[in-house]
């Protein structure tokens, strides 16, 4: 049993080692377009996030993925509509105002208007809305997950403090793969 515990520890260590980031390789997989890859990442973020029960009216209430702005990634996200995550169907909708954003479960900021981002983030910061964007320094202005290219490979960083504040839960698996995690200030 001792060896098993040792193994567990080393696997955990391996998980954190993944944070260092290594050259991206797709293996023999058919290359995805950059937009498709971003969409796949978004879907994975949704997969590895837990919403509080009150966020959904019923167990089969669809999961609302909202797209703010209108850019190629937003178009690619439309492909996620109809996919199922934890028994919920994903619906994709385009939003423009903070009021609209309140009813979303996940919100992708597709444009690059940082000021608008800040105001909307503030509007939803206490709500269980997973905020994602590929704009620069997204997590520094109060976003939860930011996509970025590092070492010519798509990676992501997480502001865990914001995630926890909004009563969402990010899976440790996800956090392990993140390039960078901003921990809660309280800790």
């Amino acid at each position, binding site marked *: 049993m001792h*060896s098993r515990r040792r*193994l567990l520890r080393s*696997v955990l260590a*391996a998980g954190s080692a993944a944070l260092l980031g*290594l050259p991206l390789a797709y*293996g*023999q997989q058919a290359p995805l377009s950059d937009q498709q890859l971003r969409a796949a990442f978004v879907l*994975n973020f949704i*997969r590895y996030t837990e919403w509080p029960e009150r966020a959904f009216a019923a167990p089969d209430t669809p999961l609302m993925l909202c797209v703010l702005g209108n850019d190629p990634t937003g178009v690619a996200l439309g492909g996620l509509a109809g996919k199922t*995550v934890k028994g919920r169907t994903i619906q994709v909708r385009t939003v423009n105002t903070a009021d609209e954003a309140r009813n979303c479960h996940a919100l992708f900021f597709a444009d690059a208007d940082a000021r608008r981002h800040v105001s909307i983030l503030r509007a939803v910061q206490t709500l269980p809305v997973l905020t994602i964007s590929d704009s620069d320094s997204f997590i520094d202005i109060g976003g939860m997950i930011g996509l970025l290219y590092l070492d010519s490979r798509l990676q992501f960083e997480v502001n865990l403090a914001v995630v926890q504040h909004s009563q969402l839960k990010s899976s440790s698996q996800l956090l392990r793969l993140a390039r960078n995690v901003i921990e809660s200030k309280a800790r």
Partner: protein
Amino acid sequence: MSAQPDFASRPLKNQLRAIVAITTGFGLLLTMLYFALSSVVREQGSMMRQLDSIAEIIVSNSAAAIRFNDNAAANVVLAALGNRNEIRAAWITLQDGSVLATYPADADIKSLSLAEVPGNRLSILTVSREMRLNQPIVHEGETLGSLNMTVDLRDMWRHILEDALLGLLTTAIVFAFALRLANRLQRRISEPLLELANATRQIAEDGRYDLRVEAKPQAAETSTLINGFNRMLEEIAARDRELQLSRDVLEQQVDVRTGELRIAKEQAEAANRAKSQFLANMSHEIRTPMNGVIGMTDLLLETPLNREQRHFADTVRLSANSLLHLINEILDFSKIEAGKLVLEESPIHIGPLLEEVILGQAGRAQAKNVEIAGHVSAGMPEILLGDPHRIRQMVGNLVNNAVKFTAEGEVTVYVTQRSEEAPAELTLGANEYAIVVCDSGPGIPAAAKEQLR
């Protein structure tokens, strides 16, 4: 070893040893086999549990890496297997067949995945150096790919072998102890029996029924056997004494009786001898005056006598001759009895002899109207060697007797050398002849016939 004696006829000691060796050996062998097999099961089970838990951890840790297609992270997850010596290689395959991550980093996945080794489960019959574990990677009901591991089983087998060797060693030691113990304990059973067997042999060889086998504390059956044996010996000895005693008495009695009989026999023989002697003497003594009487009567008959005188003298002569004849026969009888009868050896003219005898009896036969005839078979020699006087005497007596007892009919005398002409009970050899007297009378009574033999 082909002339090996039957197990059942081997010495008791060896049989007991063999029985203990066989039963103990068999039991130990089964026990050892059981432990060896359970060691295999245990080691395999432990191996499978470890592999399962490792696979579980790898699977749960690699799902996210697959989702994000993060092969670096997946490689790091697999690299954790580095401290498990028995895992030679591991790789994660995606649903489309592509390989996301390998361990070690330079593993030749193609040849590893082609190698034919037992998969996923170990059974007691799986004897292989390595196995492959294949675990699907499922996340939220979606199969993302699979984890493959090539596991080196040599360490496991070494452990099993070590266990088995230890078991064998233990078994061998226990077996040796059991044999030594059995060897010591079997004496308690076999020694009294050996003693008994020795005593039996000694008694059989020397006939010493005074020997006794000492009864020591031992198994009830053995005590019974030894006591029974001793009792039997005592009984045999007692019988022997009795037998000896009665034999002595009997011998004494026989001696006494034999003595008495011998004396009686000697007395009887002496008496007989005396009687024969007396008869011989008497007949000799009587013959002398008889010769005088006959001689004088002959002389008297030659003198002139009147008819009456001559008749008297003739009667005297006849009676004297008869008496002399009787006396001669008595003399012969006593000679036979005294063993002094000597047969002369002179030529016998058998034809004239027979004629003479028949003519001697012819008068009397004719008077009784009995026919009398003699016959000598063809091929008989004319002259034989023997005692003509005795032959004449014998044949004369027989014919005399035959004529006397035959009321009517005939008396036939014949001489033959052929078996087919002789009576059925006679078989004639070469130079053997039969003189047969037949008559038509009543024959010899059966009781009298017995005496003739």
